[in-house]
């Protein structure tokens, strides 16, 4: 039976190490495949994929297909009125229509073309920036490292949604600025995780050994430090994808995301929140969000199980 569950949205204050970061770390070689002695206790046999992991992959695959094939699959144009206002679900419109008569099913399908790629972009950018900074700070140390820690503390001082709101509003709501805001809000966690990985390698014996053998600092960075940072970063990124989708939906719910008439799921929920009798306008897009985020979270867990079986004991 596969492990389920994801670590919480963990932001820990100032000096203390981030528990989610700790969860993603352990000294290892490429992608964290620990080589145990054959038959020794602790060498984890590769387990077959659990039911839940497979289900998550199927769901995500489904959404990717929907997103790619949207023009072919969606029954109506998402931006154009195709039925009466606020029509309840019926044969013609499976999910009903919204306040402007647009088919909700089509809007949800097209919404995947926004949420999924944007989430990936946000995570990729935050990983690149945060991870890069963490790598440098961890490797160079001292002043640079201290500065980075203070900077991450500062970002962590704001609850994520509040900061994202402020940045997005300051720059003017748009898709691009929403992405910018979310990258600004999420890069520090990657910086912390990568920095932590780098620090643990730096103080490990095998790095000292290779330096003693005459390996230069840049080479050491490339050969020893980098591979060991990849594992935790991948784990973190997979856990963050779901969070990115949620944050994006929250921003657009507030009106600070992609501008209307873009079919972003959060904005669709906001539109329907005024009139509860028209439940299909708000509730159905939320189900879409739930399924995507759940699938991402399950996958993130599976990735973590695969790359860091040692943490299984305390999960």
């Amino acid at each position, binding site marked *: *039976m596969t492990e*389920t*569950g*994801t*670590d*919480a*949205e*963990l*932001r*820990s*204050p*100032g*000096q*203390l190490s981030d*528990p989610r970061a700790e*969860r993603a770390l352990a000294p290892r070689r490429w992608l964290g495949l620990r080589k145990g002695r054959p038959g020794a206790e602790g060498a984890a046999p590769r387990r077959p994929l659990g039911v839940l992991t497979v289900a998550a992959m199927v769901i995500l695959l489904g959404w990717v297909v929907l997103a790619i094939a949207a023009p072919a699959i969606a029954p109506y144009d998402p931006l154009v009125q195709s039925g009466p206002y606020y029509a309840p679900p019926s044969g013609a419109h499976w999910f009903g229509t919204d306040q402007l008569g647009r088919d909700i099913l089509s809007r949800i399908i097209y919404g995947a073309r926004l949420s999924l790629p944007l989430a990936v972009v946000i995570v990729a950018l935050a990983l690149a920036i945060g991870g890069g900074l963490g790598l440098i700070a961890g490797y160079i140390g001292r002043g640079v490292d201290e500065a980075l820690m*203070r900077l991450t*503390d*500062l970002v962590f*001082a*704001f*609850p*994520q*949604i*509040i*900061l994202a*709101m*402020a940045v997005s*509003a*300051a*720059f*003017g*709501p748009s898709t691009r600025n929403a992405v910018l805001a979310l990258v600004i809000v999420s890069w520090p966690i990657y910086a912390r995780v990568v920095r932590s990985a780098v620090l643990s390698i730096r103080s490990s014996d095998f790095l000292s050994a290779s330096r003693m053998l005459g390996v230069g600092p840049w080479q050491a960075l490339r050969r020893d430090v980098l591979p060991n940072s990849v594992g935790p970063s991948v784990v973190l990124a997979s856990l963050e994808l*779901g969070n990115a989708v*949620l944050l994006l*939906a*929250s921003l657009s*719910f*507030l*009106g*600070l995301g992609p501008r209307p008439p873009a079919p972003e799921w*959060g904005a669709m*929920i*906001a539109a*329907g*929140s005024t009139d*509860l*009798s028209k*439940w299909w306008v*708000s*509730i159905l897009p*939320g189900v879409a*969000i*739930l399924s995507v*985020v759940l699938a991402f*979270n*399950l996958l993130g867990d599976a990735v973590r199980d695969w790359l860091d079986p040692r943490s299984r*004991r*305390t*999960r």
Partner: protein
Amino acid sequence: MTGAQADADAGRPPAGTPAAAGPAPVVRRHRRTLARFIGRKVLITLGLLLGVTVVTFLLVQLVPGDPTTTNLSETAQKDPTIVAAFRAKWGLDKPLIVQYFTYLGNLVHGDLGVSQSTGDSVLSDLGKYVPATLELAIPAMLLSLVISVAVGLWAAVRKDRATDHGIRAGALLGLSTPSFWLAIVVLYVFFYLLGIAPNGGRLSAKYAPPTHITGLYTVDALLTGRPVVFWDAVWHLALPVLVLTCLTVSALIRFVRSAMLEVLDQDYIKAATAKGLPRRVVLRRHVLRAGLVQVVTVSGLAFASLLSGTVLIEQIYSWPGVGQYAYRAAVNLDLPAIMGVGLFVALVYTLVNLLVDVLYGVIDPRIRLS
């Protein structure tokens, strides 16, 4: 290690007289280090608070266009005296550094700017809305803490059995749910379909709010002897507190569970059982105490989660709190209000983290001395 300790280690009686040698006066050292520990933390927090103000200031600067157009309401913009006064107050013609210090100075006097939509100072706006949010946040916080610690511990003790999997599945589901959506669903089910919950708001229309003492309707109603109003307020609290608690508990359970698992794995738990202590005592005194540090962390996280939650949820329940204020500010692009709220929230959050850090030192003697 002193010579006396080395003696004790090897089993020889301490040389010379008692009292002076031996382990240092431990009780006194505790109090001194605790004070120093707190002092250090406070200093760091002050630095952080300053940093937060810098961030907000910079964000304000980044807004394209003339600050007068973004900060003053339409009518005010037409009046040249108001515009001139505004420019003078915020030092808009001076270099950036001076502007920052003017900003800081105004902040210290409690001036967070004037809201574009309400026309009042952001600070007074906040003063009106904070009690409502507190009335939501406090019960939600307490409930979340109690539930997540109890359930997390239960899941840890029953690791890998059906209960454990069920709890973790539930937590995962809660984590994947958008807060504003859950608020709508719950409202739809309990108000629209079942009719057992109110349609948002803090009180039914037929009751006047109780005299303002604390700003918390429940407390004020009790204090002014109006139990009917008290119960009505509680009834209105039910749904938003429920939603907030569910979301926060989902976020915390995983964390509590793994913290408790680590504790349960420790030798000192085995040793405590080996001494013949009943399981109940071991759980209560040894496991919880060791996990207490994590529980404190959890409180800090719960608080953060609650803050984020209120922004999105208060709107759905027409709850006139800081969250709704922030929501309206965002939707109307009322920049002073947005920045003011952001700053306020960050300040509160930082102070809560300070409290959490201090509590760590109080609970775990090892942290104090490091």
